[in-house]
């Protein structure tokens, strides 16, 4: 017994006395909008690993960054995944627990992640290479931080300028009646509201001058609401756009839509009665990943709101 005790104690004591290694850095200093600022990143990163398949991957590809690894396993948007694979991006697993060994093997010189998803394990990545966890809410700010960090300011400005011009043009033509947007899921409705913390596609909607109903507009940090069948009567916009998301797999979406529009409460919606209810693509409205996504949202605005009969 005593020997075993001694063994356990000495093992633990040895573990306690082990010392870890340290790391140095040089290059560009990022001091705003990132977790654990200031962070030093290389001046011209040429092997970048991104830790999420949304903003960082989508915008990274748009800015022409040299991305070598991304968590493609959990990428929701098939187009994005195809684009990534075409750009020879290696799959590093799941966005929340990316495979560290694969990242090491890719020999990155910069890792870019998201503050909310990866704050807990930042230390792990920093051991491999300088790591930046971007911490902004607005998608446009995210694009700019990403661009500043990697020396792509001009490309970002160009992209945003194109977007702003188009938005301004659409804003001038958008009719002034409320529009409702709704997401149908198997267990209820989700309404992404228009407010300071709005999810990107809905922020784009607001910038395009599209008005939402009183129920769908907030001034606080709510991102979405869950109305029941009784409450969807409050979504009384003249036009209704709806996204159908039944699960990871897209196949049952149609059946879910059919079951929903049969319901008398759905048929009592003013937009449905006027024949102005349109289904929109879930990839665009639920998998926002960059300026291209913003343009797809604007396409929908033009098609269903501005140019609709």
């Amino acid at each position, binding site marked *: 017994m005593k020997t075993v005790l001694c063994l356990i104690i000495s093992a633990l004591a040895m573990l306690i006395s082990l010392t870890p290694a340290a790391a140095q850095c040089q290059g560009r200093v990022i001091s705003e909008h990132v977790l654990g600022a200031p962070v030093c990143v290389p001046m011209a990163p040429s092997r970048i690993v991104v830790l999420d398949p949304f903003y960082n991957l989508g915008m990274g590809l748009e800015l022409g960054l040299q991305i070598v690894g991304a968590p493609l396993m959990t990428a929701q948007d098939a187009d994005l995944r195809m684009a990534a694979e075409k750009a020879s991006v290696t799959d590093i697993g799941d966005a929340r627990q990316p495979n560290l060994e694969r990242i090491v093997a890719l020999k990155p010189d910069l890792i870019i992640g998201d503050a909310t998803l990866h704050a807990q394990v930042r230390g792990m990545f920093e051991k491999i290479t300088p790591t930046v966890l971007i911490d902004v809410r607005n998608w446009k700010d995210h694009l700019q931080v990403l661009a500043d960090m990697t020396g792509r300011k001009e490309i970002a400005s160009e992209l945003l300028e194109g977007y702003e011009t188009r938005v301004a043009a659409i804003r001038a033509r958008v009719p002034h009646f409320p529009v409702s947007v709704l997401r149908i899921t*198997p267990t*209820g409705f989700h309404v992404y509201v228009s407010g300071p913390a709005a999810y990107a596609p809905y922020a784009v909607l607001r910038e395009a001058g599209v008005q939402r109903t009183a129920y769908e507009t907030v001034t606080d940090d709510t991102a979405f609401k869950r109305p*029941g069948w009784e409450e969807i009567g409050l979504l009384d916009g003249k036009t209704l756009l709806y996204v159908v998301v*039944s*699960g990871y*797999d897209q196949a049952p979406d149609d059946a879910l839509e059919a*079951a929903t529009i049969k319901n*008398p*409460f759905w048929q009592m919606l003013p937009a449905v009665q006027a024949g102005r209810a349109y289904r929109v693509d879930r990839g665009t409205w639920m998998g926002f990943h960059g300026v291209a996504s913003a343009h797809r949202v604007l396409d929908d605005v033009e098609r269903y709101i501005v140019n609709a009969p």
Partner: protein
Amino acid sequence: MTGRHADPLRALGLAILLCVCILVAALAIGAGTSRLSLVTVCEAIFAFDGSRDHLVVTMLRLPRVLAGAMAGAALAVAGAGMQAPTGNPPAPPGLPGINARGALPPGAAPALPMTGSMSDGNGLTWYAFGGAATAGFAVHALGSLGPGGPTSLKLVLAGAVVGTFLTSLTAAILIFDQATLDAVRLWTVGSLSGRTMGQVMAVAPYIATGLAAALVLRRQFTTLSLGSDISGALGQRPLLWRTISVVIVVLLAGSAVALAGPVGFVGLVIPHIARLTVGADYRWIVPYSAIGGALLLVTADVIGRGLFANQDFPVGVTMALIGAPFFLWLARYRLRST
């Protein structure tokens, strides 16, 4: 209340309880985003005219309240039935084992090829029921190992073990699938939101059968609860009746989970209160539990809806908030030590 002379009193009490239950149910139907009067509710049920208010009653509120009542009755009677073979409380089916089981199949179902019918919730119901049944048997099997058969303590612990296993299985599937997680997580805490008449009707025959069986076999439960020695001496075959009671319990608990998700504590609180009020005779405990359970769950749901107007407060959480303190009180003051 003891003795034969108290029987008319108990019958009266039962009738009063039934009336209260119906009244509360009607009020619950009237409560919600738009408050509807009792008159409107009655008109909607008996003189339906297709108006919006009537649709709200028949399509949304009535199924929800019915589901609550049925699930509550089923859980309470299942709880009473579970206490019989184990001699004495507390051994509620509302605890981990059987309930956590209900949570796995909906998580697994989307991972398997989904058919169109799944999206309206009916398929989900049957997966839940199948899962609950399997879990129930697993818990009972695990808890019966070792000498002494299924004591309440062993069943409770076995329930915890099976529950943890199944929760982990659920987590394993949900962790990688954000969309499914989003769809399923409200259900996993026990909720009556969005229940349709179709779902209610699908499960009703099973709950009805279970309740009827429990009512018919009330005397056997009483004998069973006296312990295997005495019941054996009275000519009852313990293994047979224990199996029958397990089947009835699983049928009722599984149906309740299929309808409302994993709602806990009903099966503990109600039979206990029933026992305290009418004594240990299962002829009365079963009917009192059934109505008491229906009343409790409907009330808990209305409280939740009242407190959180725009969000759907899951009834499972309300029941835990009511039931856990009761369970605590029981464990602290009413337990006979082993």
